[in-house]
């Protein structure tokens, strides 16, 4: 670290230059997600608000589609970020990667504009192709699906070919196999059937098998690399942990899919299959605790990038509580029969997606920001004492946990009134939503939503400014270990 500090694009390798483009779009879409979430949330409180201009259905759709896409952009960026380092060679088809980036981004913009311009109309085969495919989270029309698959294939080619040209590692192997599964699952979301049970059956393959199987493996790979690079964890340990983790995760997560097949018209055996396997899904999350303890004990975490480390810790907790605790709470069919499709599900959905995946992406943004600023110290004693990242961390996590709790209150009210007292009748559905507890939950969700928004603004501001005036170089544990040896 004797050379002068190199910053910006010049400090990055080829893959990383592409990665920052993905990160930039991811952050913009994260902002869009929050904005449309707030609009949808406000419509719960004031149903006439923007009615006929941007309907609730559209706000909700943009809210959750933006989420899926920003997280995918973040993941793709993260892999491009680490690949040259991990493989020891340059990305094979960088220009292709750039092309895919622009195609994907332009497609996203067109899809959203069409959502906003054509909000209602008959559902026909043409509307499936050009306007809206009608499947929650992945509503993008088919033409865009095809484009997304092409972009994912290019991405996959780049990853596989780059590792093939450079060196393979355990992490690389898991990653490449996982990407095949991520892309494969997406294809099942394009299946169309007028039979609603069949349609939902395949749709869940994308959503569940993404977030509870393939995405978990993907963040496992990123985490493994992050632990080695930023905390100096031993590759051998981390890789072994990754294999076990993946085995446990897939062992319970794949058939855990059955927890979405309780009430959609699928055969009754899914009650048992779904209940059994999904009840075991938190076990790998719990087992992860042991590995974290071991690593912290052996390596005495000393990181020159405190915000990244803090977000990695937020990821560990968020994944554990949002997916593990909140997931298990409603996964047995005996419980789910009451909670299914209430705000209880939304409580879990917010906590799990944010806790497991938003956090991990933000951690990588900070890893990237550090290199962009010339590998300066992001550890203790930042110029402004790091107040921005600390407050962003607090507001974002506090906001989402607050929304989670508010939604739980509303959800419990629905269980109580709609399901328990009224026996799941049509009138019970409305009675629950007019109850004062339900409405208060909705108000608090909105208030915590504004808190989340404030955290988002701070986060963006911090990413743009952190370390700009810092001059001390970062000292990474891996370097310390190498020098000591």
């Amino acid at each position, binding site marked *: 670290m004797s050379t002068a500090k190199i910053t910006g694009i010049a400090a990055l390798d080829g893959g990383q230059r592409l990665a920052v483009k993905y990160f930039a779009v991811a952050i913009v879409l994260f902002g869009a997600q929050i904005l449309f979430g707030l609009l949808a949330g406000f419509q719960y409180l004031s149903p006439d608000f923007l009615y006929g201009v941007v309907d609730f259905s559209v706000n909700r759709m943009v809210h959750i589609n933006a989420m899926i896409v920003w997280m995918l952009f973040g993941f793709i960026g993260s892999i491009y970020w680490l690949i040259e380092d991990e493989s020891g060679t340059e990305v094979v088809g960088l220009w292709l990667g750039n092309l895919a980036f622009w195609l994907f981004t332009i497609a996203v913009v067109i899809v959203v504009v069409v959502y906003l311009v054509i909000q209602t109309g008959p559902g026909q085969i043409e509307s499936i192709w050009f306007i809206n495919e009608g499947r929650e989270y992945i509503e993008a029309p088919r033409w865009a699906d095809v484009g997304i698959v092409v972009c994912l294939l290019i991405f996959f080619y780049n990853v596989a070919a780059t590792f093939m040209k450079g060196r393979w590692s355990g992490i690389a192997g898991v990653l490449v196999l996982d990407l095949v599964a991520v892309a494969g699952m997406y294809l099942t979301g394009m299946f169309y059937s007028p039979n609603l049970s069949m349609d939902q059956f395949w749709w869940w393959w994308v959503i569940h098998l993404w977030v509870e199987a393939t995405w978990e493996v993907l963040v496992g790979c990123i985490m493994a690399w992050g632990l080695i690079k930023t905390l100096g964890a*031993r590759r*051998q*340990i981390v890789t*072994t*942990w990754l294999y*076990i983790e993946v085995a*446990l995760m897939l062992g319970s997560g794949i058939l855990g899919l059955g927890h979405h097949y309780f009430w959609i018209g699928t055969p*009754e055996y899914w*009650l*048992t299959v779904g*209940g*059994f396997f999904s*009840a*075991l899904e*938190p*076990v*790998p*999350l*719990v*087992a992860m*605790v*042991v*590995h974290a*303890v*071991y690593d912290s*004990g*052996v390596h005495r975490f000393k990181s020159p990038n405190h915000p990244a480390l803090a977000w990695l810790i937020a990821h560990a907790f968020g994944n*554990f509580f949002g997916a*593990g*605790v*909140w997931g*298990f*709470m*409603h996964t*047995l*069919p*005996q*419980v789910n*029969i*009451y909670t299914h499709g209430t705000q209880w599900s939304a409580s879990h959905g917010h906590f799990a997606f944010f806790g497991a995946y938003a956090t991990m992406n933000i951690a990588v943004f900070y890893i990237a920001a550090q290199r962009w600023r010339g590998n300066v110290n992001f550890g203790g004693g930042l110029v402004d004492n790091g107040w921005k990242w600390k407050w962003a961390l607090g507001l974002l996590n506090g906001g989402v946990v607050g929304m989670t709790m508010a939604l739980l209150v509303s959800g419990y009210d629905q*269980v*109580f009134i709609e*399901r*328990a*007292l*009224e*026996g*799941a009748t049509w009138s019970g559905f409305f009675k629950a939503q007019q109850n004062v507890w339900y409405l208060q939950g909705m108000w608090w969700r909105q208030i915590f939503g504004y808190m989340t928004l404030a955290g988002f603004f701070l986060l963006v501001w911090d990413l743009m400014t952190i370390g700009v005036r810092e001059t001390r170089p970062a000292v990474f544990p891996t370097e310390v270990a190498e020098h000591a040896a």
Partner: protein
Amino acid sequence: MGALGHEGLNIVGPMGPEGLDAFLRAVIAGALVVVFGAVYAACFAFGRLFSSLILMRVAYGCFGLLMVTVYVLATSLQLGGVWNVLMVLMLVAYFVAPRMIWRLTAATHE
């Protein structure tokens, strides 16, 4: 409602106040199962790391609480037959998984 056991929790008719109490107990117990599972795992790992007998005892204490919460969960939901097998499976998995991971991480460290 064959597959779900007794008629105690039955969505077809309203469930009444006792049913609601049972439901609330069940979801709280459910959340605590996972939490105690993690605290057991953490105390176990720290106990091994520092060779601390006290921490190991705390770990087993937590596992005891885990067993209690699983019992509360099973009885509140009036689980029967095969669902009780699941409860036993969960107990085994929560007990064994942290030990397995510990052995593997320790073994690969050399």
